[in-house]
């Protein structure tokens, strides 16, 4: 029921590719290098967590990769299409064709019902909002009974599931989830992470999860570590313990991090 409308072959094998992406905030003495030549590649159907201490550049990485902010240098390719210059309108069109978002603060529109919120990206893109499909996606995230509710009538976990349904409905090349469990209790957090994992397993979506929580990161297939705006290693098939330990040592790995920051990193 969730097959893409595009032909299966049209999906690029590489969902996301960053080449030497750099971003500096501010100028002169106050300049902060948030991203320092990050290069990475994520295959379609992968579930990757991006971790790092606060100030490591996680959020900047997500914003640059997702077209919410423009990198100063470097190349961003999503689903085989390079993100080019152009105005905010062009960038918006790029985003809504290829990228889905899940935020910590949900960012659902308070005046739209669950069903209307989910259909919104399709409507904005001028695509047909197929009622059956939207209901099916909402049923899949466990909200088939709450189509007519407004966001403030839902719990945090339910709101986040609406946000996931909204991200799924356009069948994007990559879903970016920015601390999606940051505002949730443990049980809702587990449900939301399980749901993200399921979209990867069963439906072949690609998910990038930015988090500082080792337990959340352990749901991913692999974890990328970030420190001082550079990649600082990765971990496959992560466990919460291994991630937590890696995080503890991240501060001490400054000397060795250049070795991990190879030109192109396959994960």
């Amino acid at each position, binding site marked *: 029921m969730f097959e893409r409308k595009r032909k299966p072959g049209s999906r690029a094998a590489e969902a996301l590719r960053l080449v030497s992406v750099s971003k500096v905030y501010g100028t002169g003495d106050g300049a902060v290098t948030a991203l320092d030549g990050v290069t990475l590649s994520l295959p379609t159907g992968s579930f990757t967590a991006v971790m790092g201490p606060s100030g490591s550049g996680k959020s900047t990485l997500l914003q640059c990769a997702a077209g*919410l902010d423009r990198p100063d240098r470097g190349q961003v390719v999503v689903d085989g299409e390079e993100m080019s210059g152009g105005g905010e309108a062009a960038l*918006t069109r790029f985003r809504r064709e290829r990228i889905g978002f899940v935020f910590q603060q949900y960012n659902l529109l308070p005046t739209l019902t669950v069903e209307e919120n989910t259909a919104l990206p399709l409507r*904005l893109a001028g695509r047909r909002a197929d009622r059956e499909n939207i209901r099916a996606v909402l049923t899949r995230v466990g909200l088939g009974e709450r189509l007519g509710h407004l966001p403030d009538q839902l719990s945090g976990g339910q709101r986040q599931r609406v946000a996931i349904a909204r991200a799924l409905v*356009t069948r994007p090349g990559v879903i970016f989830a920015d601390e999606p469990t940051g505002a949730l209790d443990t049980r809702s957090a587990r449900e939301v992470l399980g749901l993200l994992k399921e979209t990867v397993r069963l439906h072949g979506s690609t998910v990038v999860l930015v988090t500082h929580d080792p337990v959340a990161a352990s749901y991913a297939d692999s974890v990328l570590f970030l420190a001082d705006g550079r990649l600082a290693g990765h971990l496959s098939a992560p466990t919460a313990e291994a991630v937590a330990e890696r995080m503890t040592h991240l501060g001490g790995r400054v000397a060795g991090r250049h070795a991990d920051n190879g030109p192109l990193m396959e994960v």
Partner: protein
Amino acid sequence: MLFLAMRSVRKRPGRFLATLLSAFLGAVIIMTFGSLHDTAAAPGVDEVSAESMTLSASVVGGYGSLLVFFAIASTLTVAVRQRAEEIRLLRCTGATPAQITRMVVGEAAVVALAGAALAVGPAVLGGRLLLGLFRDSGQVAATVAPAFGAMALGSGFGVALLASVGAAFLAVRRATRAAAGARGPARRRGRTWAGCAALVAGTGGVLTTYAVDPADEMLMAFPAYGAILLSVGFAVLAPALLGRILELLRGPLDALGGAGGYLSTRHLRRRGAELAGVLMPMIIFTGMATATLYIQGVESDWVTRSGLDRTVEDKNLETLNLVVVGIIVVFSCIMLVNSLYAATSYRRREFGQQRLAGATPGQVLGVVGREAVVLTLTGLVLGTAAGMAGIIPFTMVRTDQVLPDQGPGTWLAVMTVAAVATLGTSLGTARRALSTPAIDAVTVAA
């Protein structure tokens, strides 16, 4: 809690600018007219001079005060409603509803006092200018000296404080109750009652016109009061009505309007309380401007025709009256722009959310534009209704006609100003809000 109130006023002066501006302008107007009372009451003023000043001060100053009262109250309501997030945070930090109420009401009082205090200087000047006009037109003897005293200060500070504190109290009580989880019909019923009460009082004011002696110089006050109260009543009841109309038209509107129309109709339908805050100054402006300008026109014609102005030059008197009415009209127009600016800039976060859901900046502007058009149409229809309700009785009593001779020119001008002010302010403010990156706009700046 007063400490918290002082702190938040001092640390965030920008947020209080809209309320300060309305308190300031409102107090300037009230004090300017109030100073006429003081001047008239001074010893040695001849009876004719005193009478013309007292008349203008009580008629125009009177309905002006009512207008200022609602203008300040509606700005305050919009401002308090925008602080829901802060109120929620304070509640989580352990503030009781009474403490939160004291803080918000305390701030409102501080801002109103500051506005009124700032208004004293300009009002002294305004009072002198107004007296000058009276003297030039021969309404007041050239020897009368300007005075500024208890009436001016008392009414200026009184109305500004009462409107601010009263509106802040009601709005914060609603906000704390909403934060505590109470919602639903009780509040709506209260609104409906208040709206109906304003309509009844307004109809009463308008109908009183018929009971007054056709030659009474105070006659103009009744339809003016009536028109203001009717505008307020319409503004309070309009959102629910508008919601119902939009609900009925949902199908065709969705089909016609695309994604922008879809978002606009839903926003308008489910944000009744916010809408009332903008509709109030909108309907008051169109209603007031139409009513007072036409009433003044009819009044001038009547004075000319009846030859009551034998002691003064017609032309000067007409100018004076138009200046006096013009002050009120300009004030309500500034209030309209002020509230629209406050309401639209508050929606920065919502615009960010729309953009993150895939709306281009153009689409967001389209949504805002559509909403402004619907608001303008609603305001024009209801404002015209309120204005006509004041004009018709006055014209019927003063002259033998039902409608004034002036023709639709003034009405068209008022409606054009209202439409341009609404669309211009909404779109201009939204455009500025869109210059922030979407991701920054959605992070709450409490």
